[in-house]
């Protein structure tokens, strides 16, 4: 039950893009068509869902004082987290290149740049500061990734639609994307305040 709570909270209530504004660079750059946004969204779900549990293991068993080495190595946290994320992204890149070359070309530089997508490092750091356990961090990774995926395909569909609108010239492109993101954040506010944990606890 705790797993579902954290998943829902990360995906809808505290959406990484629309509540914390994390991972904006690729969110704005790759959201021009639904197809590429879909691919990148799936990649982010995968990377978040895999790196968070791995980073949890590293943080608990290697870096903490009660770990294997018996000394406090938390100053290595950032480097190790990034290293894990980078290797995962490398893996995703190879898979995408092998199985969908067209998507690989469409995503271009933004696929390797998932490495520096702040949503992903942000997820791992949230995990540390909120003291999640292993299954919590898996739920947060998958949920946060899913929320990011939803946000990017929604804005991509809207951007495909407003291509045919008579948008004032200075706002075309990025300007409109920022306005859209703000208004989407307003719409997502509807779910802030729902606490799945409180509801299940009442039962």
């Amino acid at each position, binding site marked *: 039950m705790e797993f579902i709570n954290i998943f829902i909270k990360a995906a809808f209530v505290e959406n990484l893009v629309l509540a914390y504004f994390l991972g904006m660079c690729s969110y704005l750059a790759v959201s021009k068509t*639904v197809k590429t946004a879909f691919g990148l969204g799936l990649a982010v779900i995968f990377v978040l869902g895999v790196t968070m549990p791995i980073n949890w293991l590293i943080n608990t068993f290697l870096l903490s004082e009660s770990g294997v080495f018996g000394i406090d190595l938390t100053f290595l946290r950032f480097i190790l987290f990034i290293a894990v994320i980078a290797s995962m992204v490398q893996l995703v890149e190879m898979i995408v290149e092998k199985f969908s070359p067209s998507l690989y070309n469409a995503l271009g530089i933004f696929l390797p740049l998932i490495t520096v997508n702040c949503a992903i490092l942000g997820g791992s750091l949230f995990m540390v500061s909120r003291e999640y356990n292993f299954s919590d961090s898996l739920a947060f990774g998958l949920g946060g990734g899913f929320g990011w995926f939803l946000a990017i*395909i*929604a804005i*991509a*569909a*809207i951007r*495909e*639609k*407003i291509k045919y*609108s*008579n*948008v*004032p010239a200075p*706002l075309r492109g990025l300007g*409109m994307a920022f*306005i*859209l993101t703000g*208004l*989407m954040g*307003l*719409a*997502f*506010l*509807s*779910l*802030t*305040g*729902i*606490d799945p944990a409180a*509801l299940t606890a*009442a*039962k």
Partner: protein
Amino acid sequence: MKQALLNLFRKIEPSKEKKLLHTAYDAFFTFAFAPNETTHGGVHIRDGMDLKRTMVHVVLALQLCYVFGTWNIGHQHFVALGEHTAPLAGLHLKILYGLVKLIPIFIVAHVVGLGIEFFYAARKGHSVEEGFLVSGALIPLIMPPDIPLWILGISVAFAVIIGKEAFGGTGMNIWNIALLSRVFIFFAYPTTISGDDVWVAGFSSTTPGSVVEYGWFVTSVLNPILATIGSATFNVQSAIVDGYTGATPLSLASQGGWENVTATYSSSAMLWGAIPGSVGETSKVLVVLGIIFLIVTKIADWRIIVSFLVGAAVTGMLMNLWGVTVFMQVPWYNQFIMGSLLFAAAFMATDPVTASATPTGKLIYGFMIGFIGMVVRVLNPAYPEGWMLAILFMNTFSALIDHYVLEANMKRRMKRAVVTATA
């Protein structure tokens, strides 16, 4: 009569050089008459309706809500004071008071909204887009009667500039304009639009004993006139009666379930709408008449309304089954006569611009609004009512729903094409 009006219009038509004047003229001319020009070439539309006439139908459907809302502002006000509590007692005072509250809201919404539209139309050099006609008619109905007018003006300006003109004007917006202006107030000035104190006009607080606050217009203009014609006047010394709370059915339900609601309001009062709330949404009967009118004239798509109601009903039943809080145990059919559920289904979700455009998409869209709105209403302790937020939430996804419905359609047809080609 018709000819005389037409001649009058022809006589006062300003030259096309005067941009702003001609824009204004054109707006009022096409409001009264359908334009003569028809489409030439390859576009064929079977229906004689143009955009403005479609919108006028929606505005017509709202008129009953306006009339009732005017009376209800006054009625709720006097019920709180314990004067003229019978529905028809002091009728002229109630209607006068309702007008005193409603007309400024109406004027501010239209002056700000239409002013911005005229400005943009003149700048872009085309005739004014009549999109604000419906938004302008809806906005006064979804506001609490005591909303400060400057806040209303800012919110309308926000909705029209950021929500519509930035997207290129009428028909291009992604989010519903009327709801954007309301959600702006909801998050920027929450105390003016939520809580138990705001739904009854004329008081800054609804605790028993607080004295009524009539403006200068009532005390120094209306009261002397009423006194000279020898009728009852507004009593400036009256105060709220003991035991009055001003709580809406929804806030009562979230505190103590359905029994708590029926202790204060009877089901028939909720059905007919003599309860505190936003100006136009309280009367369920009149809203249902509006729904019938919109469906019969084919202005609103029945798919959205039906799937919306089904979604809300199914979610309500699931919550009855789950039932961990008192609000969840409220019988699902009673959810329909509380709050603005029906009003949202009739006039907000059916907005053809912001809803999904494909028939299948409309079913999904309506159902999801019903589901999310009910979840927000019942499960989210932060917000008393969910439809505004649920509709904005699904507006965000309506383009995506359309995208996938179209894609599925294309895939199916491709498959069929391949099968016939190989056969």
